[in-house]
């Protein structure tokens, strides 16, 4: 110990100064939404929705609600999956897993039901996160597959699973729209169907 050194308190304070968090985390935090159940009164939300819809019609243009083109979003989802595949999915949907929609509602502010091709029993866990700047529900399916559910359908995307739109690290991403939602499925590359 040397009196010529700064005090240990000052040294600790300086050494433990937080590094800046990543820009993607910052964006994800800012994109987080309050669950619908805790928002304003239902009549107020309905009034706001009507007002927005009327405004959209009046302006003669449709608001941009889609998370983006399917290919772009599929690539983002695959990148996200690769960064968290080792994550312990302890925020699993409650039993029965068929209640995934409302589970996701609590986390993201929108209901994220499973697509018709996925049985509730296939779901092993879930989490809410952000892909790009869009909040999504992310389910971990049996066999190490990942299913991302977006609140809005994708642009340039049909109602059936696409051919692989992104491939990386032995995984591929397919995208499709169903019941007003956009879905991205991450699975082992080379599979030709769900």
């Amino acid at each position: 110990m040397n009196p010529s050194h700064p005090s240990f308190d000052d040294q600790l304070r300086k050494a433990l100064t937080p590094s800046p968090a990543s820009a993607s985390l910052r964006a994800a935090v800012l994109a987080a939404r309050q669950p619908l159940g805790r928002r304003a009164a239902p009549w107020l939300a309905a009034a706001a929705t009507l007002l927005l819809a009327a405004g959209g019609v009046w302006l003669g243009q449709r608001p941009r609600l889609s998370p983006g083109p399917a290919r772009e979003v599929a690539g983002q989802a695959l990148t996200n999956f690769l960064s968290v595949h080792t994550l312990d999915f302890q925020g699993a949907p409650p039993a029965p897993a068929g209640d995934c929609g409302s589970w996701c509602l609590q986390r993201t502010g929108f209901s994220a039901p499973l697509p018709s091709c996925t049985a509730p029993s296939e779901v092993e866990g879930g989490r809410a996160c952000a892909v790009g700047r869009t909040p999504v529900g992310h389910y971990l399916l049996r066999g190490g597959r990942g299913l991302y559910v977006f609140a809005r359908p994708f642009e340039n995307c049909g109602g059936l699973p696409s051919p692989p739109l992104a491939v990386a690290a032995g995984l591929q991403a397919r995208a499709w729209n169903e019941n007003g939602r956009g879905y991205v499925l991450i699975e082992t590359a080379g599979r030709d169907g769900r």
Partner: protein
Amino acid sequence: MSRAGREALVEGHLDALHAFALAWTRNGDFASEVVQRTFLKAFEKLHQLRDPGAARSWLVAILRNEIAHEHRGRMRLVAWDGADFDGLAGEGPADDGVDPSLLAALPAALDQLPDPAREILLLRYQQELSYEQISDLLGLPLGTVQSRLHRAKAALKVLLTGMPAASTAGGVA
């Protein structure tokens, strides 16, 4: 809550909360996850924050709960019975500085401390909480916070000066 209010809360505290979560969980993905959930809860409950000056300790409290909830077993929220401090070495002066070269081993030394000792150091020197805020957060008397912080610092110093890297870095000052 307005977007400006959310942005102010994020800008003011995101880095520190992420650093705490990272130091605690040692898992970047998990740290990001719990920080996101912390802010989501904070946005929902902002009306409960009566003193804006206490935002950091309020957020840290939410973060600790999120970590405990999602990562059971790693954060022992009720382990503050003092036993973790009984075995800590170092009753000597904890305030004198050390050779700056030793601080490169700080993360490794922190990891060797018992969780409660590591946490109280992070709360004080990384989160910059006051003794009173730490006392409220941990539910401990002020004097206990002070004595435990002192012992944690002394133990950390012993670890730092005893690290293998210390001898190669020129020894203890």
